[in-house]
């Protein structure tokens, strides 16, 4: 993929080579698989509905209302929406000020801008004061093909070190709809990784209920335990289906709350003998769910039969079509299944 910018793609000059046909297309690439059920704008719908009964809720965005689904809220409650311009530092400062006056601001932008640009403002103006601000950010991890400027591959590593901050990484539309009322009831700052647009629907089939701070076992299995969060949980479930055809039985423990981590459930599941643990996350291998789980296992004295991470490499990633990139970095269902098979 990435090479010297002075070398032309060979297929442009050689008709015998296959022409790549994958396109990067829009900033926020779809993550839905073929024939996957989806639900439109679950975050915007849930927040707009919640605001009908909760007058303290206000919404703010830094010129990304449309791209974070906050426009749904803004259309329903125009007098409660603040456009802060393309200014993420201001977005967080003003949210802090509104929270000080008794409101519950929901601030949206892209994950890169919240974590990298606005860190100091979230940390000191919001988290240090334990203010009731919900920070909901699109493009978490690798969910765009636009390159490192928009790929928040280290947002969890950045935010995990921030005291008082609760971190949530929901998997699908079904979960997002439940996360919104759950975190409004939690008094204090929350960082939520946001999937927007037509978001896949997966967890409704598992009878799943989101509980803040709780990990949930979605399927059991004897051969490997996958511990995952965010969109990697749907990939883990798909990989488990693939591996089932090879008579491999895979358990999937979904951990939507990255902080505080449900160490009790993780230790309980990882402590069941005989199966290795694979942590799968849409995040760099450094400082995310994988290292959080590893630390919990070591502190808890639990030694599973092997520990592996499926995560993004410690590199600035490539630009290109998202499915290509997910294959390349091992986040696609096929790649997850192949990795696990190779480790067994």
């Amino acid at each position: 993929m990435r090479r010297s910018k002075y070398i032309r793609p060979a297929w442009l000059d050689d008709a015998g080579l296959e022409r790549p046909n994958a396109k990067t297309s829009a900033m926020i690439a779809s993550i839905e698989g073929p024939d996957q059920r989806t639900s439109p704008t679950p975050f915007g719908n849930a927040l707009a509905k919640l605001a009908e009964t909760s007058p303290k809720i206000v919404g703010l965005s830094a010129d990304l209302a449309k791209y974070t689904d906050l426009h749904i809220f803004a259309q329903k409650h125009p007098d409660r929406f603040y456009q802060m311009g393309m200014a993420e530092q201001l977005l967080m400062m003003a949210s802090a000020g509104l929270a000080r006056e008794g409101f519950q601001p929901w601030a949206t932008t892209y994950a890169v801008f919240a974590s990298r640009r606005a860190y100091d403002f979230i940390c000191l103006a919001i988290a240090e004061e334990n203010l009731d601000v919900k920070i909901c950010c699109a493009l978490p991890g690798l969910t765009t093909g636009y390159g490192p400027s928009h790929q928040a591959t280290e947002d969890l590593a950045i935010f995990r070190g921030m005291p008082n901050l609760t971190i949530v990484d929901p998997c699908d539309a079904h979960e997002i709809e439940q996360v919104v009322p759950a975190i409004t009831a939690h008094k204090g700052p929350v960082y939520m990784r946001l999937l927007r647009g037509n978001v896949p629907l997966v967890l409704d089939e598992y009878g799943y209920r989101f509980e803040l701070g709780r990990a949930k076992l979605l399927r059991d299995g004897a051969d490997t335990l996958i511990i995952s969060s965010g969109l990697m949980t749907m990939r883990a479930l798909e990989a488990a289906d693939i591996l089932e055809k090879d008579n491999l039985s895979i358990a999937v423990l979904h951990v939507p709350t990255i902080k505080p981590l449900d160490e009790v459930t993780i230790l309980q599941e990882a402590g069941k003998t005989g199966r290795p643990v694979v942590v799968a996350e849409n995040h760099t291998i450094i400082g995310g769910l994988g290292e959080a789980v590893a630390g919990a296992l070591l502190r808890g004295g639990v030694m599973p039969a092997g520990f592996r991470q499926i995560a993004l490499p410690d590199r600035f990633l490539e630009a290109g079509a998202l499915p290509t990139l997910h294959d390349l970095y091992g986040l696609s269902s096929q790649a997850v299944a192949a990795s696990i098979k190779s480790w067994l």
Partner: protein
Amino acid sequence: MPDIGHNVSLRERARRIRRHALRMGEVQGQGYIAQALGVADVLSVSYFHALTYRPEEPEWEGRDRFCLSIGHYAIALYAALIEAGIIPEDEIESYGGDDSRLPMSGMAAYTPGMEITGGSLGHGLGISVGMALGLKRKASKNFVYNLFSDGELDEGSTWEAAMSAGSFGLDNLIGIVDVNNMQADGPSTQQMNFEPLKPKFEAFNWFAQRVDGNDIDALVAAFDKARSHPEKKPRIIICDTKMGRGVPFLEARERNHFLRVEADEWQKALDIIDAEPRQ
């Protein structure tokens, strides 16, 4: 409020604020004392002329909010809060010590009357924008005051906040810039030239005034105009102040961002302040 009688002049309040600040400085032997002496007149006019508040109820909903963006000016604001009766005077000896309500850098969680946590410079004005928006949502008639420094004009976040305040037309926001022309590495205008400052704020749709920040009468007139100005614009009062004001041997120090003062000099400074005619 300490019982020093009614009709105490703003000059006397400023003198006493300087005195409280010097006594806190003496506890540590060093500190941001030159800023406190410089901004004492601004704080006197703020707390004893402009602001609405209840000393016994620091979080009274009907108060004007006074946000200190410059966390290291805490020594100055504590002096004003002591003079206003919000903090007991006998806590002066705890300044900057363990288990104190008066830490070196101002934080909302520690001190009654401290509205925000300052210190990570460039935060205050934007937080004040949010508070001003919040007060408008509540149909409150109160003002949000934000005291920040000329050094904070270097921070991009200050200008994000300034542009938004103008855009939102926040006529309940009063910014106060302490232009003492001194920051950590030297004279502020030599670190990053922020002049001409008044036209900058005017260009950002603010109602701007520039006054001698050590002239009580000029400050009173400026605060009155800021509060009564009819345009739907945020208001800025640019205050040119003198570091160390009122103690000539401290005014004369060249690099006085963080002053080290000899043990015997504190009493000399207090003697100078105490020798001022009471007005």
